[in-house]
């Protein structure tokens, strides 16, 4: 596309400078996480830690607590698997079973997908409170599992794009719809499932507002909840380097998942608006 040498050099330089600016906050986070409390606020700032302060890891882990890691992992895994399963089956039914009412029902899920979660914070809280499920795992997870708009939309679109002949062939062979779903449709949906899993895993891991109102007792807290107070001035006794290590530790699992499955993320983020 770009033949001219100088144009190419200018293009590449601009792209790299842009990348450095975009990544700078995260690079700063990583280097600061390994600096000493004094070095992190030194002027002029140092590019690289003078010596790697590995004690920051234990200090940060103590602030976050093992319990929060376990809670976050449990929350993410349960939400992704349970929500994924019920969205997959519903998406299949809406795409291939052609029953009356499928269209308005699909519209309902799409509408639900477009409404920002925080509008529903208070009424969801009241429902969970009514069931006496505040500060319990069920109360934390089930209302989020129930947010099936995006998943149902994604899978319905995917199944719609599959040719009808694939299911019809199995139907002719005498399989009932449940078998068609489990044996043929679900395995074919692998790429959509991967994209969905990447996005909802990220969503669950980073979720803040709902856990903030539904499960704020100390043993129920997820990572974003223990991380958030570190930004406030009451926590100014904690060295910035330790805070950055805490940010790094909570981000690391998603960073690893992202680097391992970048294509799934890209497809999931772009897939929501396929067509």
């Amino acid at each position, binding site marked *: 596309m*770009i033949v001219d040498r100088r*144009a190419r050099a200018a293009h590449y330089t601009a*792209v*790299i400078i842009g*990348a450095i600016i*975009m990544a*700078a*906050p*995260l690079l*700063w986070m990583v280097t600061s996480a390994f600096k000493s409390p004094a070095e*992190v*606020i030194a002027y*002029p700032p140092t590019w690289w830690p003078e010596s790697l302060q590995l004690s920051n890891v234990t200090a940060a882990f103590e602030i976050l607590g093992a319990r929060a890691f376990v809670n976050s992992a449990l929350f993410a895994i349960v939400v992704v698997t349970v929500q994924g*399963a*019920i969205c997959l089956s*519903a998406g299949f*039914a809406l795409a291939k079973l052609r*029953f*009356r*009412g*499928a269209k*308005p*029902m699909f519209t*309902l899920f799409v*509408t*639900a997908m*477009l*409404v*920002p*979660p*925080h509008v*529903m*914070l*208070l*009424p969801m809280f*009241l*429902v969970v409170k009514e069931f006496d499920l505040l500060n319990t795992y069920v109360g934390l997870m089930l209302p*989020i599992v*129930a*947010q*099936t708009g995006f998943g149902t939309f994604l899978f319905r679109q995917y199944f719609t794009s599959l040719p009808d002949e694939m299911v019809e062939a199995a139907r*002719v062979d005498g399989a*009932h*719809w449940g078998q068609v779903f489990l044996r043929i449709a679900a395995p074919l949906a692998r790429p959509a499932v991967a994209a969905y899993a990447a996005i909802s895993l990220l969503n669950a891991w*980073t979720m803040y*507002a709902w856990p903030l109102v539904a499960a704020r007792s100390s043993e129920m807290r997820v990572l*974003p909840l223990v991380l*958030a107070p570190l*930004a406030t001035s009451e926590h100014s006794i904690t060295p910035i380097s330790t805070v*950055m290590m*805490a*940010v790094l530790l*909570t*981000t690391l699992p*998603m960073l690893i998942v*992202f*680097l391992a499955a970048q294509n799934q*993320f890209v497809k999931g*983020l772009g897939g929501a608006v396929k*067509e």
Partner: protein
Amino acid sequence: MTDVASSSRSHASAVPAPNSGAGHRPGRGRPTRSSGHRGDRRGLWAAILLAPNLSVFTVFVIVPALLAFGLSFFEWDLTSDAKWVGLENYLRFLGDERALTSLRLTAILMATTAIPIVFLGFVIAIGVNVPTRWMRVVRTLYFMPIVISFVASAVLWRFLYDPTYGLINTTLSLMGIEGPEWLFSPTWAPAAVAIVVIWLNIPTAVIFYLAALQQIPHERIEAAHLDGAGAWSRARHILWPGVRQQTFFVSVVTTLHVLYQTFDIVSVMTQGGPLRSTEVFIYYLYETAFRSFDIGYASALATVLFICIAALTFLVYRPQLKENE
């Protein structure tokens, strides 16, 4: 990004029970030999496959949506009995300077972040749309902000913005510029929030645009190039019109995301301050609901916001949905 949701009541009532209307209507274009109806039981299977989803969806999405609407006509503090007040909560909103200011701030943040996100997303996508291996590495650098949570990025940026130790002001001072007070200044704090939002959303925009750019036929770009069109002219006359639909989606998705991303960011980074200069509507809504426990009024605020969003998305999405059918 999150898919938590609500539903409009008109839609809720339009949905039949999963098994009620499930007739044996043969699908369009289906081969006739397979539409043997007896033993098909598609109504039953539709019900089975949809039941788990619809039951939790009803309890935790539809019911809360109706509940919020209903409670907006009451005065309630969670402890004493709820008192019917009619439209009083809505009238109160119209005269509530704090609510209106926060609504205005939200609208301004949506507009001022969406434009740079669309523009930078498009430009970066063109820049990194080169199929070499090391460009894939560079692309990954641009995608990085995807992995960080809004809370974590708020904690991180809170220190980047620090007037004395922060990376931003130390970099500026190395260039001989004295940086602003950022989060401590009512003038700069909203801009600081906007910058974080832009940074967080650029990767998604780049992803959308990359996918779109790769669908533009290569011959058209090649032909324009042979006709002597420069880089600018190619971008302006071929690429930009070629990604029109993505621009539409990026703007809609971004503006919706900004609504709730700003809540996470503001509540961690500024708590709405200084002097309420970063108090976005959802933060005010949260304060009303969970600090003042003014449940009825908070429900009215939520309903107002829901109506705004519903109207906006309906207007914007209607032609799109029609097109896709």
